[in-house]
C-alpha cells in the first residue's frame, strides 16, 4: 500500500495551522484538533513519530519550529511517508533559499499550496524533483535577504517534460564555463566506554557534486575500494577503516546513478544538484 495521504498539515509550535491541505474525504475536517489535543498537548509529543488516534494514523516530524503532519486512514507505507516529508522539506528549502521555518512558510504560503498541489495528487506522491517543478511553479519563493544565490529564471516556454527518463535534469542547459565541484563530507562516529575502550566506530561520508556542465554529459567517478570496485557520484557511503585500503560496507546512490553498471565502470548523468 502506498502512502495515500488524506491530509497534510503544517503547524507551528503552538499548534496554529500554517498550511492545511485535504486530499481525501476519508478523514474528518478537524483532524488537526485531534492532533493538538492528543499529541501536542500531552507528554506523548516526541515519544513516537507515528500515532494512531481513532482509526487515523498521524505521522509527524518537527523541522525547526514547524510540525509537518500527515494523516492517513489506511495501512500506509511509513518509510515512504517520512521520506516524502524529508524530500518535500528539502524542496521547500530550495525554493526559500535554505531556510524552512514558520516565517518562511507564512511568507510563501501561496507557493507552498502550489507545490503541494503538484507533489501530491489525491494523496499519492507525484514528482518532487525541483528541476521539473520549476517548469510548472509560477511563483517565486521569497528568500531571506541574506541568501544571495542567483535565481535561474524558469524557462517560460519550456515544453513540459513531466516525467522524462531523466527527471533530475533539464534538457538544453548551456553553461559558458563548464565546471564541476566535488565536496566530500565525512562524519566520524565513535562510541567509547567509560574505561576508554572503543565500542563502536564508523565513518559516514557523502560525496556531493555540483556541476555546471552543458548538455547531457556522462560522468565517471571512481572510488578506490579494497576490491577495486569503482563507484561513482552522489554517494552516501559508510566505509569502515581496515588497514590502509578502504572497505566499504554499503553505498547508496542518488537516482541519477546508473545502478546496474555498479560492478564495472559506470556512467552517470548529472544535474546541477541541490545536495
Amino acid at each position, binding site marked *: 500500500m502506498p502512502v495515500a495521504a488524506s491530509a497534510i498539515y503544517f503547524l507551528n509550535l503552538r499548534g496554529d*495551522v500554517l498550511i492545511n491541505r485535504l486530499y481525501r474525504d476519508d478523514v474528518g475536517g478537524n483532524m488537526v484538533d*485531534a492532533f493538538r489535543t492528543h499529541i501536542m498537548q500531552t507528554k506523548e509529543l*516526541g515519544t513516537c513519530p507515528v500515532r494512531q488516534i481513532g482509526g487515523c494514523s498521524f505521522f509527524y516530524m518537527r523541522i525547526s519550529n514547524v510540525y509537518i503532519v500527515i494523516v492517513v486512514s489506511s495501512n*500506509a*507505507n*511509513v518509510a515512504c511517508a517520512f521520506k516524502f*516529508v524529508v524530500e518535500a522539506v528539502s524542496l521547500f528549502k530550495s525554493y526559500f533559499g535554505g531556510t524552512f521555518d514558520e516565517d518562511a512558510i507564512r511568507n510563501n504560503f501561496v507557493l507552498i499550496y502550489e507545490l503541494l498541489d503538484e507533489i501530491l495528487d489525491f494523496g499519492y506522491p507525484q514528482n518532487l524533483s525541483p528541476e521539473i517543478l520549476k517548469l510548472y511553479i509560477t511563483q517565486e519563493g521569497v528568500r531571506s535577504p541574506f541568501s544571495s544565490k542567483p535565481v535561474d529564471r524558469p524557462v517560460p516556454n519550456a515544453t*513540459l517534460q513531466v516525467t522524462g527518463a531523466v527527471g533530475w535534469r533539464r534538457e538544453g542547459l548551456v553553461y559558458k564555463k563548464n565546471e564541476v565541484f566535488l565536496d566530500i563530507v565525512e562524519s566520524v562516529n565513535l562510541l567509547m566506554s567509560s574505561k576508554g575502550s572503543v565500542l563502536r566506530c564508523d565513518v559516514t561520508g557523502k560525496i556531493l557534486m555540483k556541476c555546471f556542465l552543458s548538455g547531457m554529459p556522462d560522468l565517471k567517478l571512481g572510488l578506490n575500494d579494497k576490491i577495486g570496485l569503482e563507484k561513482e557520484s552522489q554517494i552516501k557511503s*559508510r566505509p569502515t577503516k581496515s588497514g590502509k585500503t578502504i572497505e566499504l560496507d554499503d553505498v*547508496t546512490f542518488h537516482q541519477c546513478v546508473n545502478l546496474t553498471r555498479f560492478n564495472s565502470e559506470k556512467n552517470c548523468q548529472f544535474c546541477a544538484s541541490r545536495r
Partner: protein
Amino acid sequence: MAPPAQSQKSASPSQPSGKGEVSDVKMQLRQLAGSRSPGTDDAKRELFKKVISYMTIGIDVSSVFSEMVMCSATSDIVLKKMCYLYVGNYAKYNPDLALLTINFLQRDCKDEDPMIRGLALRSLCSLRVANLVEYLVGPLGTGLKDGNSYVRMVAAIGVLKLYHISASTCMDADFPAMLKHLMLNDKDAQVVANCLTSLQEIWGLEASTSEEAARERETLLSKPVIYYFLNRIKEFSEWAQCIVLDLVAKYVPSDSNEIFDVMNLLEDRLQHANGAVVLATIKMFLQLTLSMTDVHQQVYERIKAPLLTLVSSGSPEQSYAVLSHLHLLVMRAPFIFSSDYKHFYCQYNEPFYVKKLKLEMLTAVANESNTYDIVTELCEYAANVDIPMARESIRAVGKIALQQYDVNAIVDRLLQFLEMEKEHVTAETLVLVKDLLRKYPQWSHDCIAVVGNISSKNVQEPKAKAALIWMLGEYAQDMQDAPYILESLIENWDEEHSAEVRLHLLTAIMKCFLRRPPETQKALGAALAAGLADFHQDVHDRALFYYRLLKYNVTVAERVVDPPKQAVSVFADTQSSEIKDRIFDEFNSLSVVYQKPSYMFTDKEHRGPFEFSEELGNLSIDTELADNVVPAQRVEANDKDLLLSTSEKEDNHGASNNSSAYNAPSYDGSRMVAASQAQQDLVSLDQPPPADVPASLAIDDLLGLGLPVAPSPAPSPPALKLNAKAVLDPNSFQQKWRQLPLAASQEISMNPQGVSCIVKSSGSSSAYARSFHPLHCFRWSSPELQVLFLRTKRGRAFYLSCGLYFNRLCPNLVCLRDQSWKKMIE
C-alpha cells in the same frame, strides 16, 4: 474545511477575527470583477492571497465564493491557481455555487496551454460534489487521450477521484478499461504509475462486489504485466518505483529460475538512496523466497547491510520506520543480526523512540556469545539521567536474563542496580527480580539477601511495591523481618492508594501467616479487618474469601493460597505466531510499526466503540455522527445484561442436562451463583460440616477479629431480571451472539423445511419467521419465554443457533426448553 465556529476557537487571539476583513475583501473583489484596467491582475493577486491566507488560518471565507468566481475570468495563471485552490476547498460546502465554477473549469479544460488543461481538470475532479459528476465524465475522457503527458497524468488520478465520488459513474463510463489501456501503452512513466495506482485502488474496492473486477485485479499480477513493469522500472520516479515493487511482491513466479531472474534484475534497487525503495525491494525479496528456505536466509544476509545503512542515515523518523522493520526481521531471524549488535547501541543524541527500539533489538539479538557485551552496555544506560531510558534498559536486562543466557552475571548486575539507590532504578529492578525468581527459584538466596535491605518506604511505585510485597510473602521464611515489615505496611493501609498493592498485601500476609503463624497472627487480623472494610470490590472480596477459607479449614486455605509452585519455564508470548506472520505479510506498512495486523487498526469493528466515542467526546465532531454512536452504545449496555444472563442460562442448561433431576428448586439454587461466590463453592461452603462452627469461632478469637459471629452476611444474590421486551435488530443480536462464549452447542444439519417445521410446531400465532436468508434471526415468543433463532448458512449445511430468554421462572420451564431442543434435534 472546518466550520467557522470551531475555527474561531482554534485561531489564536492574535489572528483577525474575520468578519470585518471578509466583508472588506468582498467589496474590493466586487469592484475589481468588472474592471479591465491594467494592473487589475496585480490587485487581484493581492486580494486572492489575502483570501487564501484567511482560509488557511481557519476563517470561513465561503461568503465571497461568487465574487471569487466572478474574478476568475483571467488569463493569469497565478490567479487561476489560487482560484482553483479556493474553489476546491469550498465547493463541497456550497454545492449550488459550485455549479458556477463548472463553466469556467470546463472552458479551461480546453485551453491551449497543457498546464492550464491539467490544472483545470485536477480542480474539476477535486470539487467532490456528487451531483456534478456528470460534468466530469467528458473532460476526463478527453483528458485521458490528451496529447500532453501532464494532462494524462492528472486525468489518471482524476478517474480515481471520480470513483470515490460516484463509483457507478466511473464504472459506467468504462474508465478502468481506458486506464488499463493507457497503463500498458503510454510512454510516459508517471502516467503509467498513476494509472496503476488508480486501478489498484478501484479494482481493490470493486473486487468484493464484482467478479470481473476481481479478475482484473488478478491480471495486474499476471506475468506479462509484471514483466512490462519490471522492464521499465528505471524510468519510474522513486515513488512510482515503490508502487511497482509493492505490486511485484504479490506476484507468484512459476519457478525458481524466474525468482532468480526477478531478483537479479532488482538487486541494484537495494542501493537506491530512497529508503522507501529499498524497503519495498526487501519486502519483495522476502516474499518471493518464502518457499525457498536457504535462499531466504541468503536474502537476510544480503539485505543486512542496506538496512543498517538506512538506520544510520536520514532523519530519526526515518530510522524509526526502518528500525521497526528491522525489529520484525530480528524477531524472525535473530542469529543473522547477532554479530552486528553494536549497530544497535544507542547514541546520546537519538530521540527516545529510536533508543527504545534499539533496546528491543538488543534484547532480541542477545545470545550466548554477545550477552556479556550487551548487558555491559545496557548497564551503562541504566545510570542514564533520562529516566524513561534508564527504566527501559533495566527492563531490557531483565528480558535478556529471562532468555536464559548467562543468568549468573545478570543477576549480580541487577542486584547492583538495587544498591544504586535511585528510586526509579530500584522500582524497575524489583519488578524484574520478582519475575526472575519465578523462573529461577534457585537464586532466591542471593536476591533475598539484597531485597531484604530495601526499606519499603523507599519504594513508592505500585508495581514495584507489589513486587516487593510478593517477595516478602513468598520468602517469608527466609526473611527475618518479613512479618514485621508487612505489619508496618498494614498499619498504613489507608494511605495505600493502589488496589493492586492492597491485594498483594492480603495475599502476602496470608502466606506469611501460613508459615510463621505466631508472629503474623495479629497483622493478619488487622489486614482482614481492613480488607473487609475496603471500598474496593476486589480487595473486599479477597479479604472475605480468605476469611471464610481460614474459617473453614486452614489446610485447605494453605492449599489454595500457598501451594507448592513450579518454576515458570516460559513466560507467555503475547502475540500468536499467526499474527506475526500476518504482520510479516504486510511488511513495509504501518502494521509493522504498530506491531499488529492491519485489520486491527483499519477496520472500525476492531477499534471498538469505546475508543471511537472517546474520540467524539474530545473532538466534538459533527453532531450527526455523535448521535449515531451514542444510542448504539446505550443499546449495547442494555444488551449486555440480557446476553450475560442468556449465557448463564445456557450454562445451567448444560448442567441440568447432566443431572437427571429437573426440578425447579435445584435449578433455582444453581442460578444464584454470583461471581464472587463461585469461589465459595469450590470449598463447598454451602453445606458446612457441623464441626465448623466452633472452629470458625476459634479463628475469630485467634485473629482477634472483633466481628460478629456471622461476619458480614453474604450479600443476597442479585435477582436475575430479564427484560421482557428485549428488542434487538438482527444485526446487533448477531454481533452480541458471537461475542458470547459457547455454553452448550449441538450441531445438526437439517433442511429448511425442518426448520420451518419447528417454528410452526411451536404453535402459537405469535410465532413468525421472516423469509430465510443466510444470517437471519427470528423470534418466537410466548408469555413464559422467548426463543431466538439465529440461522446461518455455511456451505450447504444450515446452522441454527438458539437463544432462550425466560420471562418468568416457572416449574415446567425446563421441560419446555427441553422440548424445544428436542425439536431442533428432530
